[in-house]
């Protein structure tokens, strides 16, 4: 999933302060899963903004809504009337959702209420961690299903570096050394010899360094 975290309220308050009629718009997929911008978070955030405005004596209406996915134009278009009736939209979707709104509503100011953090997994309720960097050229077959691009602080393909101690990364005792995990897993699978070969230099062009990325499936195009 894409993980998100809601921005600090002070920051949201500041960016929203320029617009009287504001739509707080949630996204029911990744953002809801991250507890950052689903229906419940929309309700809570909208009440906080209303309360703050009441206290500071500022005018304006705060509207609420949440759609299934803000990254899909058909779904975004369904709330067109509501958006057009507002001065701005505070989107609680990821950066992709925010931009889809901006694209579909060229005359409207769209504000990001969340930070898009990473592609990751739920470790347990309330804990997420990064697993994938979306590099466009998966190598997990060669690294025992554990990604050094996303999880090694130096993105080493021939790790671990000299800073790996007791299974932890040199940058923090809270960060696992993914190369230690890779070695442990390959040892368990009796495939440690896989790491004796030098891993070649990576092509970073599918990782976004070849310019903005686009994916097309011709058969699906109308």
């Amino acid at each position, binding site marked *: 999933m894409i993980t998100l975290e809601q921005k600090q309220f002070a920051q949201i308050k500041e960016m929203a302060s320029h617009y009287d009629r504001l739509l707080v718009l949630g996204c029911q997929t990744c953002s809801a899963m991250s507890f950052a911008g689903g229906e419940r978070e929309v309700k809570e955030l909208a009440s906080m903004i209303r309360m703050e405005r009441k206290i500071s004596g500022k005018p304006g209406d705060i509207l609420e809504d949440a759609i299934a996915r803000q990254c899909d134009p058909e779904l975004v278009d369904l709330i067109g009337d509501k958006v057009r009736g507002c001065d701005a939209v505070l989107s609680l979707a990821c950066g992709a959702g925010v931009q889809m709104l901006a694209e579909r509503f060229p005359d409207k100011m769209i504000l990001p209420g969340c930070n898009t953090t990473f592609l990751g997994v739920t470790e347990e309720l309330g804990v997420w961690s990064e697993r994938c960097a979306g590099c466009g050229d998966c190598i997990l077959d060669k690294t025992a299903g554990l990604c050094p691009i996303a999880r090694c*602080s*130096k*993105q*080493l*393909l*021939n*790790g*671990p*570096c*000299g*800073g*790996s*101690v*007791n*299974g932890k990364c*040199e*940058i923090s005792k809270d960060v696992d*050394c993914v190369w*230690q995990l890779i*070695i*442990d897993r390959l040892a368990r699978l009796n495939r440690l010899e896989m*790491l*004796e070969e*030098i*891993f*070649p*230099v*990576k092509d*970073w062009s599918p990782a976004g360094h070849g310019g903005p990325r686009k994916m097309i499936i011709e058969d699906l195009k109308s």
Partner: protein
Amino acid sequence: MKSGSSLERILESGQFAVTAEAGPPKGSSSKVIQRKGDLLKFCCDALNVTDNQTAIVRMSSLSGCVLLKRLGVEPVLQMVVRDRNRLALQSDILGAAALGIHNVLCLSGDHQKFGNHPTAKGVYDIDSIQFIQMVKTMRDEHEFLNGEEISGDVPLFIGAAANPFADPFEFRVIRLAKKVKAGADFIQTQGIFDMPKFTEWMKMVRDRGLDEKTHILAGIIPVKSVGMARYMRNNVSGLSVPLEIVDRMADAKDPKEEGVKICLETIEQLKEVEGVHGIHIMAVAWEDIVPRIVEEAGLMPRPVV
């Protein structure tokens, strides 16, 4: 000869080499490097110029190397992949060759989080092992990473780091083998305090025959105070400082003298370890002690090659 550097000639002739570190300043004065060069030139075969060590911005390593060369000191150009992509690394390698620098040490680099610009974007386009391989290809095949031809020679003696004290221990020698396979002509190790672990590692190195394929220079860090010993024991990832060293420093009447004594004992032991071809002294902020250590370790005068 791959590079014609003095370091290469000393090591290839089977003599025990001595190198040391000369860190560039956090400023633009050439005097700091010159002072270190003058201080160390008679007791070392080559001086490593660090590359934004611990991710703190300093004068560039390449400039430091040029300043040393002007004094007649042989430099080792340290280069980290943290700050440069494959284009910048290759162009600096060509520049080093043009400036008559003949030794390079290929490193990953300490993570930018440790330094004085912790919000910087790390580059890490290629890793240290791929970097070694790239320099070897530039030197031996006259080819860039993309296969295009390089005009002119790139005579570099290629070095790499090894840390016998990092984890997982059993994999450390496999990673060294990868560096040797990639093209490392010499290795400078992490500072050694834990001699039993180092000798165990060296045995694994010899079992794989790696000591015959590369020259291993054992790292020495002179310890100035008990505070420094404690700090290294508790705070530096991948450095193994036994409690005994901390206790010796704590109990010493004259900690600096004790630090020198520890160094000399370590060097004596290292001379006896089969496959160790020299030492590399990293006397951060205590360069003044290096001539005395080399002298009292019986490593003077340095060979003229």
